[in-house]
């Protein structure tokens, strides 16, 4: 076909190759293939993750909140349960810093041109104080620390339980799988609320109750995902190869297969963390969670809610922290999910 076409066009002078055409181009480094460079799986995941603006925003927000939760309570000299009070020099009476709105001396001076004339003129309460006279800045970040700690610890333990359960159930199949799945079904049919209620009949209210309730419910989602991944992977050739080489069941499950299931499980963890934070906040709000003078984001919201008509500023910081945490973890979870399982059009 091409011959016919070229014959129709007037013939160009024939190209005569020179020696240079057969010499190696030494200016190009061909020891690495740049066109078809192989890229590690995790490198690809990182690149896709950081390409997503939302995921990066989420990561930054989480970072800021974690840093503030770590250093926030130590940025001033108040303890999270210290009631701030001074002795009034004029009357000699003890004055407590009850329910003060945000109190920042330099800002006040900047905007009004004069300093405070209350007994706490030199003290800074960035978010104000609560109705007992405790510094809210310290309490909010201390509460964020408690909430985050509860979430991380429970989700980590849940991941270990759920992952092992799902992997084992999926790997062995047959009767073991059937029994284990019926167990999951029953466990999944008990609302978390009911578990909390039953736990509250014999456990003291507090952090432990919240953690146990979360431990009992959050592993189920993990186990389902781990099982699905196991079913996908266990028929692949490399498992057969490993088996042929003499690997035992446990080696195959936890050393050969587990690393390949870690992606979806991490995504699930990212979505479980806001659930855990939310559940903790919700239980503390209802009155089963953190007990005074301890505090968490949820109990601070409850405190603020009780005084909302008279002191509405108290509820704003903990609500913002909670909302930003939920938002950020959801963003990061979405980003991770897309980064770990890219669709073809995104590549």
């Amino acid at each position, binding site marked *: 076909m091409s011959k016919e076409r070229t014959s129709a066009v007037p013939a160009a002078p024939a190209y005569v190759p020179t020696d240079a055409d057969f010499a190696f181009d030494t200016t190009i480094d061909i020891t690495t293939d740049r066109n078809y460079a192989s890229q590690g799986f995790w490198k690809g995941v990182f690149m896709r993750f950081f390409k997503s603006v939302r995921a990066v925003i989420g990561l930054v927000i989480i970072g800021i909140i974690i840093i503030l939760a770590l250093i926030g309570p130590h940025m001033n000299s108040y303890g999270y349960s210290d009631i701030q009070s001074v002795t009034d020099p004029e009357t000699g009476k003890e004055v407590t810093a009850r329910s003060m709105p945000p109190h920042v001396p330099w800002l006040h001076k900047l905007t009004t041109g004069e300093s405070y004339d209350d007994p706490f003129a030199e003290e800074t309460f960035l978010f104000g104080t609560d109705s007992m006279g405790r510094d809210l800045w310290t309490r909010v970040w201390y509460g964020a620390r408690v909430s985050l700690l509860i979430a991380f610890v429970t989700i980590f333990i849940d991941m270990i339980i759920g992952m092992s359960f799902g992997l084992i159930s999926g*790997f*062995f*199949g*047959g009767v073991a*799988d059937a029994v284990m799945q019926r167990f999951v*079904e*029953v466990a999944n*049919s*008990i*609302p*978390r*609320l*009911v578990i*909390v*209620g*039953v736990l*509250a*009949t*014999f456990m003291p*209210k507090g952090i432990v109750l919240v953690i146990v309730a979360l431990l009992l419910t959050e592993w189920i989602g993990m186990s389902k995902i781990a099982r699905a991944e196991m*079913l996908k992977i*266990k*028929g692949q050739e490399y*498992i*057969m190869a490993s*088996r042929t080489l003499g690997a035992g069941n446990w080696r195959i499950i936890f050393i050969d297969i587990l690393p390949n299931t870690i992606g979806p499980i991490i995504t699930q963890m990212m979505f479980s963390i806001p659930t855990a934070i*939310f559940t903790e*906040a*919700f239980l503390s*709000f*209802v*009155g*089963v969670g953190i007990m005074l003078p301890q505090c968490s984001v949820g109990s601070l*919201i409850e405190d603020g*809610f009780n005084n*909302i*008509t008279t002191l*509405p500023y108290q*509820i704003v910081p903990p*609500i913002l922290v*909670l*909302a*930003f945490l*939920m*938002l950020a973890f*959801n963003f990061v979870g979405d980003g991770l999910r897309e980064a770990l399982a890219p669709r073809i059009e995104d590549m």
Partner: protein
Amino acid sequence: MARYIIKRIFMAAATLFIITFLLFLLVRIMPGNPFPSERMSDEAIAKKRAEMGLDDPVLVQFGHYISDILRTGSFGKGSSLYNGAPISTVLPTAMGNSFRIGGVAILFGVSVGLILGIAAALNRGHFWDVFCTVLSIVGVCIPSYVFMIFLQYFLAYKTTIFPFYFNNRNFLHSAVMPALSLSLFSMSTVARFTRNEMVEVMDSDYVLMAESKGMYGTKLVTRHILRNALIPVVTVIAPLIVDLLTGALVVEKIYGINGIGKLMVDAITGEGIDYNYVLALGILYSAMYIGIMLVLDIVYCLLDPRIRVSDRPKKKKSSAENGEGVQA
């Protein structure tokens, strides 16, 4: 088909029975004393225990409990709440209040969510799409009770558009805020889900085919797109109703609604924990949860012929898979 439904119903009943037994066991076996020991003498406690059958073996007690529920619908007496009135008289009123608010919330949330989702999918990249995205972000990151607190502060306290507390005599007016705040999450979830499903269907080949045959407008949307896009939406409604149960706990606390959520909170956080209430409400919540799952499973199965057809071969395939796994 009928076999599947019967099997599903049987499984649900069995699950509920097991859960009831587990809850009963936990509440009875765990340490704790239903009587205030400092106010009653040992003899009086022993007499009371014998009277209430607490000395019988747990299995016998469970038998009595179940037969009482099945024969008379009695869940025993509450000890501290409502002055020891029988639970079976307190529960229906509370359930009525909760279900009315919850029903309004889910109806409102799902219908508005559907409309928003459809509007967003049909105007991709325009106002309703952006609105839908923002709503779904807000719905995810703001817990419903936070939204409620804001509503209450601005609509009931700052301006007195709506009453501060729920009042049964003024149902329509006072139910607006609790229902609205409860429905926020379901609304945003349904909207986002509907939008994504519709976009996916609209990009599919058969819609292109229908369009190229000259079909357009409402007919195309209702006959070809919506039918397939809405099937998966059914699956998100079940978890939404369950979330509603949890959310209702706080709504009822905030708005002072005498519903089952408030009952639960009172039973757990009251001075003495009310074992009978915890048990009865636990069974009720589990039953509702299992019931919702069951109904939606069946509805889903009826809606989507593919599930009906693929039911049997799927099972064979999975058993073959298992066989392979054992061999390998």
